[in-house]
């Protein structure tokens, strides 16, 4: 293979780009994890084996009693370093994996989203940081409205 100057330059630029943004490469959507009907399988499909360790370094803000199961606001934040992803799993939903965020290094480790809950359920926030899994869980009650439907 002949290395001319132009190719050389191009390679140097490519290398520089990789060095500047070293970690953030996107994967494809983990479709099997989203299709999984149990929380444990969804988590295993999404993040690989290994039970997430309970961590007090994750804060999940979610109501104890959801006003409407169709719109439950969730915010997950963490002080953990080198956060790679934040995922939200609703155990009792038909397919428990609700959302997963691949977090680039330029983001603060916090994300908010509104999710649907079919019924009362534990909700887990799972953070992958430095190659390890951490989680926190909260029980959320979904009530049947008398008027609001």
């Amino acid at each position, binding site marked *: 293979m002949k290395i001319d100057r132009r190719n050389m330059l191009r390679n140097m630029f490519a290398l520089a780009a990789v060095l500047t943004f070293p970690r953030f490469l996107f994967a494809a959507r983990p479709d099997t994890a989203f299709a999984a009907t149990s929380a444990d399988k969804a988590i295993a499909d999404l993040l690989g084996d290994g039970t997430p360790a309970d961590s007090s370094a994750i804060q999940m803000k979610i109501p104890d009693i*959801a*006003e*409407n199961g*169709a719109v439950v606001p969730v915010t997950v934040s963490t002080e953990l370093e080198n956060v790679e992803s934040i995922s939200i799993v609703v155990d009792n939903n038909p397919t428990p994996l609700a959302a997963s965020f691949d977090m680039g290094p330029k983001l603060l480790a916090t994300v908010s989203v509104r999710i649907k809950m079919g019924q009362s359920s534990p909700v887990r926030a799972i953070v992958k940081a430095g190659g390890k899994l951490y989680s926190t869980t909260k029980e959320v009650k979904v009530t*049947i*409205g*008398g*008027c609001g439907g």
Partner: protein
Amino acid sequence: MNRSISFLSLFVLGFGVGTVAHADPEADRLALVNYYQQRYPNVDLQEYANGLYAFDEVAREQWIEMEDFPPYEIGMEEGEEYFNTPFANGKGYADCFENGGIGIRQNFPYFDATLGEVVTLELAINQCRETNGEEPLPYLDGELVAVSAYMAYTSRGSTTNVNIPTQDPRALQAYESGKEFYYARRGQLNFACASCHAQSAGLSLRADRLSAALGQTTHWPVYRSSWGEIGSLHKRFRECNVQVRARPFEAQSLEYRNLEYFLTYMSNGLQLNGPASRR
């Protein structure tokens, strides 16, 4: 028997006419204000414009979170576009309303002396369309409600100020009909609007906190999470009627317009804060 019938009709007639002649909307409103202030001394009057969130801390937090980026903005912005798109004849909504339709939500509903009926904003929007040769739009949701949402938005912060021309007995009759609608039990469940929203406001019905009769009109149209879109006050009237298993009236029927007239009067003095999001 005959005597009892005539006695009864006399009674009904006398009762009906007498009360309309002596109907005192302001006394009704003050009674409600007084009632709630005694019952919930810690709830500021203006807070009633926020419905059940005046009472329910848990729900309120979620609502405030929703307000971070409220989903009604989607419909409201569509409404602004519709509002500014001219009709086929080159005119537009702005030509039908005072001040080009901006900041005038608080003037509705009003009693139209010529028509002899209560006119709501939604009715006026369709009147505007028909005057300009456009098809009237459905009243429950969609384009008309979006226009209404935009117009409500331009009126935020104005004060509800329904003015009932008390010298016009027809206006008082309309008010009184609306009041009767609110307080009469209906449907298989035998509930009046008031059964839930007057004496029971702030209490729970199954999992729901009930909003008060005060402030029920300030914030329409509303994006209800259960609807997944913005809808009109009359859509909610219909839904409430169906929930007690009463056959609902058509949106913008005389019955519902009179109800809106009464109910909006009860909110006089409260700030307009529509459109809004609710559970």
